[in-house]
């Protein structure tokens, strides 16, 4: 069974060659690894490869086939690209488009102040909305010149992470 796995910007081709209990042979981009892989009771993968001991924790995202992987040294974004994922990707509908027409906050918080109204003309860099979270205020400005098309929140609203707050035309 061979598929592609995306790790940050890299796309790797992965293939399971053989398995006997917890001893696996896996090929990654042409390199064959013989690993002793255990899923420990506290939810971490303990992998021993050529004597080296690795601990990897996978935190699954809400989107299927996506993980944040934590190694002892860093955190990495991982995505499984199987046939289904490739199909969706080709259709351009995997839910992620770089949209310069919306303002959203990467974290949950509260709307402190909206500085514009629907229909206002705004200039690139103009501050549109102030969000507070954990006692810190963040100002969000227009990514480009435009007209405020829609404001989805009002002062004092509690917001989710990645919620679209303001839409520009």
């Amino acid at each position, binding site marked *: 069974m061979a598929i592609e796995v995306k790790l940050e910007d890299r796309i790797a081709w992965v293939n399971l060659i053989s398995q006997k209990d917890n001893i696996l042979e*896996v090929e990654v981009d042409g390199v064959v690894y013989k690993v002793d*892989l255990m899923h420990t*009771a506290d939810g971490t993968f303990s992998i021993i490869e050529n004597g080296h001991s690795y601990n990897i924790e996978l935190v699954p995202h809400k989107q299927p086939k996506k993980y944040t992987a934590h190694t002892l040294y860093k955190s990495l974004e991982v995505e499984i690209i199987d046939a289904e994922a490739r199909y969706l990707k080709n259709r351009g509908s995997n839910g992620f488009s770089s949209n310069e027409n919306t303002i959203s906050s990467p974290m949950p918080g509260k709307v402190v102040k909206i500085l514009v109204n629907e229909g206002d003309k705004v200039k690139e860099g103009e501050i549109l909305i102030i969000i507070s979270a954990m006692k810190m205020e963040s100002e969000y400005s227009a990514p480009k010149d435009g007209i405020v098309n829609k404001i989805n929140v009002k002062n004092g609203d509690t917001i989710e992470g990645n919620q679209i707050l303001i839409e520009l035309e």
Partner: protein
Amino acid sequence: MDQINKVLIANRGEIAIRIMRTCRELDIETVAVYSEADRTSLHVRYAHEAYYIGKSPSSESYLNIEKIIDVAKNSGADAIHPGYGFLSENAEFAKRCTEEGITFIGPTPEVIVQMGDKLKAREAMTKAGIPVVPGTKNAIKTEEEALSVIKEIGLPVMIKASAGGGGKGMRLVHEESQVVAAARAARSEAKAAFGDDSVYIEKYINSPHHIEFQILADGHGNAVHLFERECSIQRRHQKMIEETPSPLMTQELRDKMGESAVEAAKAVNYTGAGTIEFLVDNDLNYYFLEMNTRLQVEHPITERVTGIDLVKQQIKIAEGQELEFTQEDLFQKGHSIECRIYAEDPDNNFMPSPGKIYKISEPLGLGVRTDGYVYEGYEIPIYYDSMISKLIVWGKTRDEAINRMRRALYEYKITGVKTSIKFLERIMNNRNFIDGKYDTHFIEKNQEQLALSIPCEDCDDIVIIAAFIDYLDKIDKNRENNKEFAPAQSRWKNTPIINQF
């Protein structure tokens, strides 16, 4: 004053638990108060008693003086510990406690007023002969006034909340054009944090070191200092790492500043635990910055090198007892460092990262202390501070302490939210930090090195394998009749770890 038997802790998070720990060691019962967001927070579960005091925003709960006084009276608490932040430097709260016959564990309302108002504090210190940073004598009312003051003392300047502390309501201004926005932001933050939006202006000192002295003063005229804490590693004017002794300090300067700190405390008849913050420039001139009339976040490093439990001392002083030790009994033994663990994204301008904690592994073993409050599955509320834990280490030497901190940060794993852990690890590997050569601009000056994570090419392939196997197992579960992958042995599967409710 009488023995304290039951203490209400008017706070939340790690500091509430920190205080309850000492209370438990003193056989004092504890009363927690909690907002809507904190029903399942650890301080509620640690306390003997717990009472709901209002909605999640702190203005409707942790800052509600009358509600907290009510709970204290109804639960029979004979004292209130305010922790830090919230009402800890609110003179009105201290006054109301006293009026109701409840011991406020802290200084008198008069002292809080005097030192809490940064301008009055500067005045008192000047009188006592302690150097202060040049700046306005009075609060500024308007942005125009700010502009005129700045013309007088010259740029750059700091705009600071009069009622401030903890880096809140503070803005650095380099250019006149920034003044209006900076003053607005400082006022708004000050209002949110302290309920008072007046600000003042101070000359900005280049390459300053932020060094503070811990003091303890009893009601019998005795006062001592417990040496310095070096707090210059800051991001967004908030401390990130503290250590004691300070690598900048000389014994001569320590004696001089320590004396000034004790004089400062005596000048205002201070009682309890307090901190005198100084700015120290590269020529080792020092200036009084402000006095914090409460416990500091970073108090554990002082506890570690002196062996004194500061919360215990606060309680004893509040009971009217005399200090058990004099300046001559106190020594700094070894070296202690604290790293603050924030739920934030260091790679994205330290943006807060609230959310649900997935998994925690605490660092343990020799010379390591953690003071935290989050647990697995806990959702960090958006309403309060983003500091979720403090990691404190001790070593016989500064080198040993740095190595130990590196090891402890390596062991510390919190997933589910972004944290400052990996960033702190990079600081522990930074040559300038290791050499003790840093000031409050450390993070800006070293940002390039601090942005680099440790490369691990092998790890990458192993991560890919882990994700791949997890995926195979998942599709295997979906296709029960078509087993093409038998999952590796797993103890987890048969473990009834979770008590499903």
